[in-house]
């Protein structure tokens, strides 16, 4: 089914004809930050791809703060000062509202559709609230597609050791174990992908599902991995962006992420059981260290919720966990010895058993995954306590060890899956 576009956008596409590169920016009320993102993308396209025709597409979800106007007004005041090459053709700007279910996925769908219409060779998508984006991101996200014929570029950010714990404890190790490729930030949010892959995304029947609302990031990564596309990573440095909703429901976030990954396990149930081991993918960019903002954590509160879960959620966990695993969790919650540690082996079992229970629908999905939250907090508290005095490399080794444990226990998941 074709994606509806406004007549003005249709006319603009007709006028532009074809381009080589496209940068998509989904947005909703990002007037404060989107100008910087557009300027960085424009400068990056001009500097690193001066001989390519390019367009920037802002796919907006009905912002009321003047986001589209901010995109239209964003210009590089003095290109010479940032060593921008003289581009052969100007970077076209397209500002369009998206149609369909409100969400980042629908915004991306419009970007994919425009990419297909403009017959682009390579696309990149970047968040509209980024503060750390620089022109070089364009080279890092688009370069491997144009120069080395990769199909998907996954971002690799430098993050504080306590940052991204859902990624580190669930999404990264699970995706690596399932699909056998080392993609460190499967839900990074800023990606590069070929025109071929954009057309493949567009053809998938997911645009009326939760992918349109949330979960587009992991869906894009997984679809590329499961579809056998050529995947690589690019080191983008630190990712700093506006925190829009500090009071958001964290358990809800966990549900969204976990349900997206588990749903994809069902979609690709013919693919992942045949994958064994995990291999590296090529890494572009120049990894370097930067000062990262410290992330304060409240271990006491996490442990309190974990222990309360073990005390009160028995009837729910009994449906999700195997008796042996549940007994181990209860034992751990009851033990008063310090330091508290939820070992890798147990955590992997918890995740695999929840995935299998979600697949078997032993409970309504949202209830089941919300009950994972205390366990996740227990695991996070354990990780924080274990890495209190660890440096970045040591922490990365610990995360890698967990990922290896996921791979080792994959036969257990297969047995549970049935």
């Amino acid at each position, binding site marked *: 089914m074709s994606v509806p576009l406004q007549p003005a956008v249709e006319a603009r596409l007709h006028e532009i004809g074809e381009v080589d590169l496209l940068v998509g920016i989904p947005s909703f009320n990002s007037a404060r930050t989107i100008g910087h993102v557009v300027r960085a993308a424009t400068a990056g396209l001009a500097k690193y791809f001066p001989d390519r025709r390019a367009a920037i597409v802002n796919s907006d979800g009905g912002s009321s703060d003047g986001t589209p106007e901010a995109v239209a007004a964003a210009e590089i005041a003095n290109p010479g000062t940032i060593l921008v090459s003289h581009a052969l053709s100007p970077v076209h700007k397209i500002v369009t509202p998206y149609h369909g279910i409100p969400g980042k996925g629908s915004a991306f769908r419009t970007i994919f559709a425009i990419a297909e219409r403009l017959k682009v060779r390579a696309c990149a998508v970047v968040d509209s609230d980024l503060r750390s984006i620089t022109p070089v991101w364009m080279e890092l996200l688009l370069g491997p597609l144009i120069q080395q014929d990769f199909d998907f570029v996954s971002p690799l950010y430098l993050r504080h050791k306590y940052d991204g714990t859902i990624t580190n404890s669930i999404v990264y190790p699970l995706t690596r174990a399932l699909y056998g490729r080392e993609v460190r930030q499967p839900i990074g949010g800023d990606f590069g992908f070929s025109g071929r892959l954009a057309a493949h995304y567009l053809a998938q029947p997911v645009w009326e599902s939760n992918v349109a609302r949330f979960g587009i990031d992991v869906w894009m990564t997984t679809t590329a991995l499961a579809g056998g596309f050529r995947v690589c990573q690019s080191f983008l440095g630190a990712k700093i962006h506006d925190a829009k909703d500090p009071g958001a429901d964290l358990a809800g976030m966990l549900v969204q992420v976990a349900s997206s990954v588990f749903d994809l396990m069902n979609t690709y149930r013919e693919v992942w059981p045949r994958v064994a081991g995990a291999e590296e993918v090529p890494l572009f960019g120049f990894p370097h260290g930067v000062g990262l903002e410290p992330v304060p954590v409240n271990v006491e509160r996490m442990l309190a*919720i974990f222990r309360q879960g073990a005390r*009160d959620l028995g009837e729910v966990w009994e449906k999700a966990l195997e008796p042996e695993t549940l007994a181990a969790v209860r034992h751990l919650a009851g033990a008063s010895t310090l330091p508290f540690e939820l070992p890798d082996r147990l955590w992997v079992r918890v995740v695999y058993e929840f995935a299998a229970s979600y697949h078997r629908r032993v409970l*309504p999905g949202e*209830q089941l995954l919300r009950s994972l*939250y205390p366990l996740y907090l227990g695991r996070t508290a354990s990780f924080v306590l274990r890495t209190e005095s660890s440096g970045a490399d040591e922490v990365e080794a610990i995360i890698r060890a967990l990922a290896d444990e996921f791979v080792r226990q994959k036969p257990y998941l297969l047995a549970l899956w049935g």
Partner: protein
Amino acid sequence: MWQFLNEIVQKTLTGFADRLAAFGPNLLAMVLILAVGVLAAVAVRVGLRLLLPRLGFDRFAQRLGLSVILQKGGIAVAPSAVAAAAVSWAVLGVFVLLAIGALNLQFAMDLVSRTFTYLPQLLIAAGLLILGSLAAGFLRRSVLIAAVNAGLPSARLLAAGVHTALMVLFAAMALEHLGVGRHVLLASFTILFGGVVFALSLAFGLAGKDLARELLERLARRRDEPGEDERRHL
């Protein structure tokens, strides 16, 4: 004299034979209907015992929480067996009513007629109870999980309260539908529910005002606590 008595006895016997001749077919029909009913009930029971597990009914029942309800009620057999038994008894019940109707007696006709008139109410009431039980179980679990995730100390008590309130509400609705003590029930429910809410308000407002303040302050503080930005977790 003997002839007179003989005539009376003859008349009585002839009358009985006539009535038996008239009533006999009805009796035979009743027996036949009952026999068919028993066979049908057995067939339905056996059929459902075989079919329901294959259709995944037990898994479905487990997911809905019916298995737990049955276990709590001391029923140790599979939900599919319970459903098969219930349907087969219902089938037998229908045949018994039809059999009584076949007798063509006034009281039997009245009984059948009244039963069939009352049956929809009974079914709706049963439906309300089942729906209520499912809704109460679902909400109890949701409240329990949400309360644990929010770190509320009395999560189980809160969940049990929601469960009980919903069950009482649905039981009251079912009884009201059956017309059992309609006014008494309505008044009792209103007084009970209003009383509970009033008592809770008083308890929370007077005796527990410090606790209420502390809870609200803790909730407000938690929003500002570090490490809660979801992006840090993603």
